[in-house]
């Protein structure tokens, strides 16, 4: 008799405590999830990925043009071939400096040759060669979001 009573009591206790904790748990999880979504970025104010260059503004053969804001160097490889190389270090995102031997990173000492191939330092990958497209109006569109194999030039039609 006393055992049953004790059992009944502990079962009731278990149910009460269990449901109380379950409700708190669900509430907590819901609030946590909502908070996570609240903190998550909704709108991106990031810089645009693509930019345009008029064909008439292209550098002379063998020369380069550096686009500071887009962190891109545009190289005229031959009369009708251009290439765009990103200046964002593949290590931890600093902007590399163009020097005679290629590119050097001021943050952690990554070294690249003139084609952006890693020759020293911690950089894990070649500097990205970027996709170039022809767009109407005699302009080239450079897409900093799309990476090509290194050495891939673009034929100006």
């Amino acid at each position, binding site marked *: 008799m006393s055992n049953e009573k004790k059992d009944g009591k502990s079962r009731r206790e278990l149910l009460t405590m269990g449901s109380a904790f379950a409700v708190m748990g669900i509430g907590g999880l819901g609030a946590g999830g909502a908070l*996570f979504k609240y*903190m*998550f*970025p909704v709108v*991106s*104010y*990031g*810089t645009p990925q693509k930019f345009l260059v008029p064909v008439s503004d292209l550098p002379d053969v063998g020369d380069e043009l550096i686009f*500071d*804001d887009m*962190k891109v160097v545009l190289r005229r490889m031959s009369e009708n071939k251009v290439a765009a190389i990103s200046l964002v270090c593949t*290590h*931890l*995102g*600093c*902007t590399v*400096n163009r020097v005679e031997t290629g590119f*050097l*990173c*001021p*943050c*952690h*000492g990554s*070294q690249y040759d003139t084609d952006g191939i890693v020759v020293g*330092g*911690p950089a*894990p990958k070649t500097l990205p060669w970027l996709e170039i497209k022809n767009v109407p109006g005699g302009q080239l569109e450079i897409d900093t979001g799309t990476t090509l194999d290194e050495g891939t030039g673009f034929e100006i039609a």
Partner: protein
Amino acid sequence: MNELIKQAKEFGNKLYYSFFRHRFDNTGLTKSKIMFSNVLLHIQPVKIHKRSVKFKTTMGLGLITFYLFLILSVTGILLMFHYVPSTAIGPDGLPDAYSRMLNLRSNVFWGDFLRNMHRWCAHGMVAFVALHMLRVYLTGAHRGGREFNWVIGCILGLLTVFLSYTGYLLPWDQLAFWGVKVGTEIAKLAPGGALIRGILLGDTDVGAEALIRFYVLHVAVLPAVMGFLIAVHFFRVRKDGGLARPADTSKEKQIPDEEFGDVKNNSVFKTARSYKLVEIVKGNEPKVNEETDQMMFAWPKLIIREIIVLAALLAFMSMISVFFDAPLEGPADPNHPTNPAKAPWYFLGLQELTSYDGFIGGIVIPGILAGGVMFLPYIEIFLETFTRIYRKNIPGVWFARERNLENALFIGMYLFMLALIIIGVYFRGANWAIEYPWVQSVGGGH
């Protein structure tokens, strides 16, 4: 007339006892009352062990760390009156946050001093957290029921570093921008790090949103968490029986009684002292007739020493802040880092490590070090339990012979970090190339 004086005295008495609940005499009862009837003083016990006030016991490192936190809170709140966390370009062509820095430095009365104070105290706090941790480990005070408090201390240390990190973003200068840029790129390398990065930055890249988020973290979220954990940290020290000390201190040389001034015994029981006031805590508490001779009243000896430390610290930090300006680089340029782009000294060890490999140097090694140090007491317990080799730990004693191996390893880790920091500070030049400080670099100098 006499009646009036009597009334005035009575009124004065009533006034006095509404502020204070005690007089200032030499009785043990008063010394106890002073301690436990004051909200600030009651954080400390009424009676402490005599060795607690000795310099070599703690060197005051934890206390100094706490004081620096207080100074940082006060100066930080004052700086908030003049700061705007905005990257919007103002009429002077500079981001608002940055021009507020220039404003603080040149226009605001005392602004330069307060900013210097805040920055140098932040540097000091990182250093003293490290020194305090070293002291605790080398005196074996992380064991004997204090393991969890060590973990809390490590979390406090990480919070200190994270507070520094969020703090140096706020001026929106070159150091700020590229520090956060590189730091969050490292976060990206960690598993799930891209998510954390997104939440920290509030955007795909470092920008206006990141500044607001770091600002809120720096002035509200992190200090609140830190304040709470400091309370827990102190509370546990009290509950663990005060500063760690050996079980038997009767052989130790103590400060002679005369130095503490005499204590008048006005108790009804002439032989009794105020042990009733000592709370029930774990550990080797003063047992009547055993350790009683080594206990002393915290008032006034301990309190005076604490005030001296505070005064000395304030004087020292003020002097530094008057003579040395806190660093401020050029306004943030998202296109070009400075060359070399160096983090503050306490991150240069990490920067040096990441300059060998981003993932191993930025995530793996710091992760192993931070985790290993945080759970060090538990690792020790684990090894002891499963190898059945119990190492004797004498809490509160420097460089205990039994712990030579552990101490050597711990000091070795400190030297390793210190070496990396020294390389980062002095031996890295433009493009992070090795450079010797005693060799004049080409084109350098004037």
